[in-house]
């Protein structure tokens, strides 16, 4: 169906089936309803051209208002509802001192209420405002666009909202500002949903170009990036990442250059111009070989101020160094002279003669001496400005100059040369004698000798023990340990020959070797004595301390005092015969315990006594010897 509609008339070009057209003066409504059960697409295409023209009039506005309503409804399952709206709104005004306004209010809505269906709404819109070659007029283009995608409680569905907006403003008019303000709000919220994330992706390209003279191109980019999450156990993260990346493969130079020029100019009086620039740049090279990596930062920070009444400070630090090469001569003279009056026999007058010693010392400083010359220069200049009604400001220029010269020198050890000049003046007829006292030289030498002190400490150790048993007190059981003392006495033997009784007591001759004479007697009486007589020295000190000493080689005398009773007369006589025969000779003695002794009988004069009749002879003697 085709319809041509103007404001004055409506012409139906061809009548369609099942359609109805309502035409009024202000709007045109086309009602087309398709009702069928088969999958058939319903297509509605509307091309509306609205033109309002005023020609040759002054101060008359040309207004054209177009409010179209375009709806496509599809209630059929598994079908697609498409609604395409192409709208061209143009307002032109070629007259002077007039305004051309073009307003488009457009609503595009797609609602899907069925299950597992997708509601899509695409809106492509181009708004152009052109004001060619007009003076002192501004061209404004405003787009207010609201796009909403709402998903009511769907499960496992995603609500997406994509908004692409391109706005360009070109001004070719001289001395006219071009402003482009882009306000964009993009929000995605998830309420009372679990395990879902709210993501906002915002890409902005903001460019402002001013190509005309005496015009300023301003590009302000304000970016607010916020992600909120009201769900518990979730973190709210807001990240802004700006990445400038240049990637080159195959061994080519990889460079990433950021050139920033932050210029702030101020043309207003009594204000200061500040420029703060903080820049961080990082260039990375990942897994590329034989590739140079360059990171260049060029910063230009310039402060320009053409405003009067502002002070300018500049500090100049100058260092001036001078090296002076000059010899230094230092001399000292000491004259030890006397003036004497002597009689001159030639003139027969008294004349004065100078005699004595002269001592002089001189020293020449060699080498250059460095002289450090520091000049500190500071200048402050204040401009003078005539402000007319505001008065006249004075101009001051202060120049402070301070000069300081320092001389640093290092004087080495001085060497003094003493020249002795001895002068002897002879007088005629007299001998001049000059004696130089003998110089005594005394040298004192202190000899420090190194003495060695030695101190040896002998440390010995000894180990002893006690192993107490039930028969310890009645058996031969000395507890003999060890000692490292070489001067320790020889300990007693650990064991002793078993003592066992033998029937008799024997005296044998000689002391060693074969026995040639032997006397057998009964065992001695009880009460025999075993006497130990050792040679030792006992001394007491003045303090009463007892000192006992015995040399090991000193003799140890052992005596046996024996007495025999019940001897017969023959036994007593044999004993005396034996003693008489071997007086003073070494004999062997085998005692009643079968122990062998070797020694002599020291008291042969001991009498043999007969205590009664019969075998009641008693004899006794003392044997001195040693046990073998």
């Amino acid at each position, binding site marked *: 169906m085709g319809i041509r509609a103007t404001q004055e008339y409506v012409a139906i070009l061809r009548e369609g089936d099942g359609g109805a057209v309502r035409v009024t003066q202000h709007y045109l409504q086309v009602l087309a309803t398709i009702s069928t059960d088969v999958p058939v697409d319903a297509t509605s295409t509307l091309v509306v051209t609205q033109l309002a023209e005023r020609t040759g009039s002054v101060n008359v506005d040309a207004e054209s208002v177009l409010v179209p309503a375009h709806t496509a409804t599809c209630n059929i399952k598994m079908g697609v509802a498409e609604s395409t709206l192409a709208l061209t709104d143009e307002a032109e005004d070629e007259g002077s001192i007039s305004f051309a306004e073009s307003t488009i209010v457009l609503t595009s809505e797609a609602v899907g209420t069925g299950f597992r269906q997708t509601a899509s709404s695409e809106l492509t819109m181009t708004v152009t405002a052109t004001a060619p070659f007009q003076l002192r007029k501004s061209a404004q283009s405003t787009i207010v666009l609201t796009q909403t995608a709402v998903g009511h409680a769907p499960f496992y569905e995603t609500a997406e909202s994509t908004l692409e907006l391109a706005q360009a403003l070109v001004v070719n008019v001289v001395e006219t500002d071009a402003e482009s303000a882009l306000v964009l709000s993009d929000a995605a919220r998830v309420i009372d949903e679990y395990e879902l994330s709210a993501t906002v992706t915002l890409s902005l390209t903001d460019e402002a170009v001013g190509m005309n003279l005496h015009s300023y191109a301003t590009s302000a980019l304000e970016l607010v990036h916020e992600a909120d999450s009201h769900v518990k156990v979730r973190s709210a993260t807001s990240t802004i990442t700006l990445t400038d990346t240049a990637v080159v493969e195959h061994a080519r130079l990889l460079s990433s250059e950021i050139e920033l020029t932050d210029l702030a100019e101020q043309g207003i009086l009594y204000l200061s111009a500040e420029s703060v620039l903080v820049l961080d740049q990082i260039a990375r090279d990942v897994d590329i070989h034989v590739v140079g990596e360059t990171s260049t930062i060029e910063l230009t920070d310039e402060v320009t101020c053409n405003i009067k009444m502002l002070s300018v400070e500049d500090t100049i630090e100058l260092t001036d160094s001078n090296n002076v090469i000059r010899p230094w001569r230092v001399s000292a003279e000491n004259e030890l002279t006397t003036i004497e009056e002597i009689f001159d026999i030639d003139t027969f007058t008294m004349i004065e003669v100078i005699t004595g010693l002269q001592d002089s010392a001189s020293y020449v400083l060699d080498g250059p001496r460095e002289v450090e010359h520091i000049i500190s220069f500071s200048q402050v200049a204040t401009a003078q400005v005539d402000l007319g009604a505001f008065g006249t400001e004075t101009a001051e220029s202060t120049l402070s100059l301070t000069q300081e010269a320092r001389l640093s020198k290092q004087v080495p050890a001085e060497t003094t040369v003493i020249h002795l000049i001895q002068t002897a003046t002879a007088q005629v007829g007299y001998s001049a004698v000059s004696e130089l006292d003998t110089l005594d030289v005394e040298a004192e030498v202190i000899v420090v000798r190194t003495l060695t002190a030695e101190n040896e400490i002998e440390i*010995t*150790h*000894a*180990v*002893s*023990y*006690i192993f*107490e048993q039930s028969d*310890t*007190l*009645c*058996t*031969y*059981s*000395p*507890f*003999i*340990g*060890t*000692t490292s*003392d070489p001067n*320790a*006495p*020889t*300990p*007693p*033997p650990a064991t*002793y020959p078993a*003592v066992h009784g033998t029937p008799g007591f024997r005296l044998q001759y000689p002391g060693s070797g074969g026995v040639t004479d032997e006397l057998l007697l009964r065992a001695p009486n*009880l*009460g*025999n*004595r*075993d*006497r*130990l*007589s*050792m040679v*030792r020295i*006992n001394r*007491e000190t003045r*303090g*009463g*301390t*007892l000192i*006992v*000493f*015995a040399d090991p080689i000193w003799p*140890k*005398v052992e*005596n046996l005092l024996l007495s025999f009773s019940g001897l017969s007369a023959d036994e007593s006589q044999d004993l005396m015969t034996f003693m008489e025969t071997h007086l003073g000779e070494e004999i062997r003695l085998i005692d009643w315990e079968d122990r062998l002794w070797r020694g002599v009988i020291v008291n042969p004069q001991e009498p043999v006594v007969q205590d009664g009749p019969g075998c009641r002879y008693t004899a006794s003697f003392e044997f001195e010897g040693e046990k073998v």
Partner: protein
Amino acid sequence: MFQLAAPHPGIQTISLLPNPQFSDGEALTATVTPKRATDGTLYTYVKTKGGRRKLNWSFRLSRAKALELRAFLLSYFASKIQVTDHNGRVWVGNFTGNPFELESSAPGLDNITIEFEGVET
């Protein structure tokens, strides 16, 4: 129990003896020499011995123990001896008796008397 240990202080040998017989003695070694002046004044001259005391013990030993003591005396008669007497008192000193006599008082039993001078530690 009576204990003899020698030499002191590096003790190497220890002999255990039964307790001594009664009539053991303990005496001071300090001496006092009195001098009386003609005016009747008594002067005393004292000589101390550093606290040393003179002790004597008599033992009645078995024959084997007597032989052990005999061997001990032969080895350490001139050495410093440490004696722990029957009262548990420890003495350090020397044997001063000379000679030492072992007397057979009964079959298998010997008597011996030891003289000792030393300082109790």
